[in-house]
């Protein structure tokens, strides 16, 4: 039993080293996956913001059209400058334009931030590998030194 103890210790050290390398790789791959997902999400969010801007433009047009129709129906010149209808629609136009810009800005922001998040995750993956490998090597060194320190002759000395 005593004769196999050194071999068990060496084997344990080797398995520990491999396990730590594998763990570092797994964490890196996890962060790489997150980086990919972050890029996708940014673009998806940008599309949603664009659709939201278009929708706001449609709502603005519907409001303006309704005011023109009511003015005409009420005997007002719906296109006369400086008149009520005109003033209302100018206001509607202004409000709708702002919403559209806001949506466009959000879409751009989503793309930019998605890309940034993706890069962060990629850096994290690289760090996982770097520090995981260094730690595994350091532990391997300590374990190896301990094994050498604790070694004892397996054959009787004369």
């Amino acid at each position, binding site marked *: 039993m005593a004769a196999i103890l050194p071999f068990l210790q060496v084997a344990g050290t080797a398995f520990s080293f491999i396990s730590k390398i594998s763990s570092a790789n797994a*964490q890196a791959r996890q*962060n790489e996956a*997150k980086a990919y997902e972050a890029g996708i999400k*940014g673009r998806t*969010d940008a599309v949603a*913001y664009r659709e*939201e801007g278009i929708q*706001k433009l449609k*709502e*603005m047009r*519907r*409001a*303006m059209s*309704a*005011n023109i129709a*009511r003015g005409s129906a*009420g005997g007002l010149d719906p296109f006369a400058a400086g008149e*009520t*209808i005109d003033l*209302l629609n100018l*206001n*509607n136009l202004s*409000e*709708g334009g*702002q*919403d559209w810009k*806001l*949506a466009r*800005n*959000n879409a751009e*922001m*989503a793309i930019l*931030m*998605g890309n*940034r*998040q993706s890069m*962060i*995750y990629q*850096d*994290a*993956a690289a*760090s*996982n590998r*770097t*520090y*995981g490998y*260094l*730690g595994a090597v*350091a*532990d391997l*060194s*300590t374990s190896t*030194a*301990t094994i050498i*320190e604790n070694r004892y002759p397996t054959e009787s000395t004369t």
Partner: protein
Amino acid sequence: MAERNVLYQRNPRSLNIPTLDYANARAIAQGSAQLNQSLNRLTNFISQKNANVAKTKGTEYGAANAPTIDQINDSLKTGKELEFPGSKTGSLFDRAVNAAAMEVFSDNLETAARSQITQKAVMAEQNNMPIAEMRNSLDAIIQGYADSFGEVDAGFAQRFKARMGIVANSQYQSYAGKYKTRIDRENKASFISAFQIAIDEELPKIIANGIDIEFVDGQVGEAKKRTNIAATTEIIQGMKADLAQKMVKRGFGPSEVTQFLNVFDKKVDDYAYDVIESHVLGAKNIIEANILVENLLAQSMPTNVKVAFDLLGPEKINEANELAKNALDLFQEQQTDIMQLRENRIKTNTSFFKQEIGTALIEMSNDFEGGKLSVAMVLDKYENLIPLEIAEFKEKYNMTTVGAIAMPGSSKQDVRNAFTQDLAFATQRYSIQDVMDEQLRGNLSQVDYESFLTGYSIREDKNFKKALNFGRSMFGLNESMIVLNPQGDNAVRINKMNAFERALILERDSQIAENNLAFDAFEWTKNNINRFVGESEDEILAINQARINNMIWTKAQLEAVSNDIINQKPLEVGSNVLSYEDAVELLEILNNPKIVSDKK
């Protein structure tokens, strides 16, 4: 009613900035922390390894360079300060060096201290050192060694003192036990010696003589003329109490105390019995002894005997009375023994007297004045010891006689034959005095004279006489065979008889020379007579011829023969007086034979 105008509804949403997850920073921090831990483990391992190496090397160096026992002893003698390698505040190596050196130094110091403590214990036992001195010596040893490194490491010194204190205390306890045992033993031996003196010397005197003082309220009163019985008893009881008290003080156990006190009581009883017995045995005669015993039984006795009875007590009075009766029997036996002793003493003194007076008479034959003085001294010496025998001797010695054998005209040969036949056939016609008379007349040679004197002398002894009669019967001799000139068979028988008689006398002399005074002549004759009966005539003749041819006497033989003659039979025959002067002349004539050196 007019419809209201339509207003565009603003989107409530504001600018949306997504929140970032800084996973990279988190990964770096986590990885760095883990790496840091790993590197710390590695560093610690290496540091520990280096520390161990430093400690090991430091320990080796410190152990190798620690102060030795010789250096310690030298330091104690000279006061030179010891040097310790390393330091307590330096590097790990220095500290290890110092610690190892101190450890080895402590071991060395402990070894040296233990050795000295053991030596001191042995010396203490050999010299019977008092325990206080022993304690101080041990303390001094420990203190001396502790001081040697007290300044170097006070804590170390304290621990050393504590350890050595245990060792020294163990030795001290052991020695104290032995010391106490020895002191107890000496005290006991001293007491036993005093006890023996008390019971062997003091006690018998007190009991025998009594005490003539009395105690008044615990103080010694004035001496009384008569023995004070109560005071004597009180003194003895006081002695007993004093002995018991001393025994308790000297560590005797209860059983031992009881044992000694029993011995004391037994001795008191024995001495009391002795007083009673001595009282009876001190009587002048048996009548007085009887009277003393009767008085004792009637309780009438002197005061000192009353003391003895008082000490024995009423429960032992019957034994004392019985002892007195037995003492009466003992008195009678003693009287008989005394008489026997007296007789034996007279016999012994008479025997010595005969030997000494014989020597003195022979001396007188050579030196008259000197011999006369010797005779007077011998007589004076035994005058008081055996007065009757001395008076008788003087009376006999002053008697002389005339020849009963030699008739006018008788030849020397006739005289010789007459004595020879008288001795051979035991006709008892003549005596020693006749032999001496014929010698004075010049009818006998010196050799014949001595031979006949011896022959008649030994016949005074009944045992010898019986032996000779037995021998005579064995040789077939009887009075009818008397012939003046023995020839043939008779002569042979007479020669055999003479040879046997000479052998018998020689054997007796030999036995006396070996201090065997209980020589039984008759018994010897029964055992040896066949030796003489069986001799042939030629052999006997040859023996006689040889004796004649070698008729040479040593001085010692002559003296022995003369002593025998005189001792066995005093010079007496009839009523005539032989004076000292005559005796001297007689012995001068006896001195005729050729005397040679004893060396021959």
